[in-house]
C-alpha cells in the first residue's frame, strides 16, 4: 500500500491530470443532466444579481452594440416606410385609374409602361399589350388625367406609343370654355403649344384644352392640358398659348389604350379631298 502511495506521490501530476481529464469528460457527457442544470440555475442567478448590482457602471461595448443595432433598425424601418409610401401612392394611383376605367364611356384596355423616353426630340413609351390584346395602330393612349399619345407600332405582345412630347405631334384641340379650335404641337423643349387661335378672340389662363371632334383620330373631349401662359405677339394674328400637359410623363407607369378605331370612310374622304389642297396647319397624318 505504501508503495502505491509512493508511486502516486511520485507521479501525482500525471495521476491527477488523468483523474481530472476523466472527471472533465464525464462532466461534458453529463452536461445536460437535471442536477447540473439546477445547480447552474442557482449560480447563474447569483452572478446575475452581482452583475445587476454593478450595472450602473457604464459599458461602452454594450452601448456601442446597442447603438449599432438601433442604427440598423432605423435603416430597416426607413426602408420599410419608403416601401409603404411607394405602395400607398401606387394604390392611390391604381384606385384612381380603376375608378376612371369604370366610369369612362370609352372602351379601355389597361397597360403597364415598360419603358419610355421623355428627354429626346421624339419620345416614345412601350406598353405590355399588343395586337393579341386587341390593340391596333393609331389607337389613342390615355391615363385618368388625360391624353398620353397614340400607338404607332406594335407586335403580338407589345406596342410602342408616340407620346405628346414629340416633334411630330399634331392634335386637333379646342379650349373647353372658350370653344376655340386649334392644334397642339410640342416645341421640343418641354412645352405644348395650342396654335391657330386667333388673337381677336379672348382667351383665359387656366382653361382646359381637350381633343376636338375635328380629328377623326381621337375621341373628342380627352383632356390634353391646361392653358398656363398666353402671349400676344406683335404683328401676329394668333396667340402663342402654352399648355401644361395634364399627364406627368416623368411618372407615367400605367396607361389605358382606348379601343377606338377612327371612322375609315371619313378618313379616306378627308385624305382624298382636303389633304392635297392643304398647305400645312392641319393635323399631320392624323
Amino acid at each position, binding site marked *: 500500500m505504501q508503495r502505491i502511495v509512493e508511486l502516486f506521490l511520485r507521479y501525482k501530476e500525471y495521476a491527477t491530470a488523468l483523474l481530472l481529464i476523466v*472527471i472533465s469528460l464525464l*462532466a461534458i457527457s453529463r452536461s445536460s443532466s437535471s442536477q447540473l442544470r439546477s445547480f447552474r440555475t442557482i449560480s*447563474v442567478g447569483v452572478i446575475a444579481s452581482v452583475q445587476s448590482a454593478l450595472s450602473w457602471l457604464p459599458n461602452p461595448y454594450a452601448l456601442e452594440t446597442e447603438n449599432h443595432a438601433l442604427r440598423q433598425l432605423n435603416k430597416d424601418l426607413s426602408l420599410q416606410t419608403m416601401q409603404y409610401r411607394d405602395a400607398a401612392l401606387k394604390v392611390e394611383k391604381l384606385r384612381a385609374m380603376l375608378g376612371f376605367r369604370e366610369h369612362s364611356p370609352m372602351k379601355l384596355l389597361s397597360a403597364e409602361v415598360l419603358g419610355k423616353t421623355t428627354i429626346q426630340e421624339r419620345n416614345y413609351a412601350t406598353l405590355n399589350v399588343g395586337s393579341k390584346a386587341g390593340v391596333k395602330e393609331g389607337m389613342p393612349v390615355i391615363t385618368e388625367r388625360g391624353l398620353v399619345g397614340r400607338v404607332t407600332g406594335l407586335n403580338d405582345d407589345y406596342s410602342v406609343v408616340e407620346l405628346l412630347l414629340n416633334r411630330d405631334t399634331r392634335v386637333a384641340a379646342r379650349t373647353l370654355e372658350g370653344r376655340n379650335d386649334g392644334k397642339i404641337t410640342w416645341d421640343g423643349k418641354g412645352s405644348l403649344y395650342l396654335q391657330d387661335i386667333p388673337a381677336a378672340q379672348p382667351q383665359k389662363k387656366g382653361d382646359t384644352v381637350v381633343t376636338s371632334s375635328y380629328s377623326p383620330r381621337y375621341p373628342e373631349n380627352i383632356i390634353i392640358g391646361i392653358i398656363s401662359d398666353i402671349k400676344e405677339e406683335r404683328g401676329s394674328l394668333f396667340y402663342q398659348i402654352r399648355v401644361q400637359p395634364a399627364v406627368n410623363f416623368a411618372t407615367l407607369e400605367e396607361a389605358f389604350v382606348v379601343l377606338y378605331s377612327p371612322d375609315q370612310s371619313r378618313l379616306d374622304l378627308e385624305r382624298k379631298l382636303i389633304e392635297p389642297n392643304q398647305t400645312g396647319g392641319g393635323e399631320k397624318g392624323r
Partner: protein
Amino acid sequence: MTAYMNYLWYAIAGLILLLVQLNLGYIAVESITPDLLVILTVFIAIREGQFAGEIAGFVLGLFFDIISSDIIGTNALSKMLAGFVAGYFFTEGAALSESVGKFKFLGVMGLAALVHNIVYYFFYVQPTNLSFISFFVSHGIAASLYTTVVSVIVMLVAARKQRW
C-alpha cells in the same frame, strides 16, 4: 509570505478574474477576448508547480463553465491542460522576476493558451456544423495571441518586482 497566503491570494484573484472575464466585452476585438483565467493558471503553474497549476486550471475552468453557461467540463479540461503544460516550465525557488518577469513567460503563455484553445474549440464546435480547423485558425490563434499580449502586463509588473 507563506504558501497558504499565496493560495489565498490566488483564490481572491481567481474570484475577481471570474467576474471580470464575464464582462470582457469592453476590450473585445471582433468578439475575441483575452482569457484572464488562463493567465492566472499559467502564473500559478510557473510559480507553484505543475500539480498546483493543473488543479488551479481545473477549478477556475469549472467555475467559469458553471457561471458562463458553457458546457460543463470544457473550460475545466482545457484550463487544466494549460496549467499542466505550463507546469513543465516551473523552476523551484526561482524569484518572481526570474520566472514570470522574463520573455520566457510569454512563450509559455502562448503555448499554454494554444493548447487551451485547441481543446476548448474542439468541444466548442462539436454541436455545430463549423469546421474545427477553420474555426481554430480564425478564432483560436487570435484568442491565444490576444491572451499572450495581455500577459505582457503581468510580465512587466513581475520584472519590476525584485522580491516576492
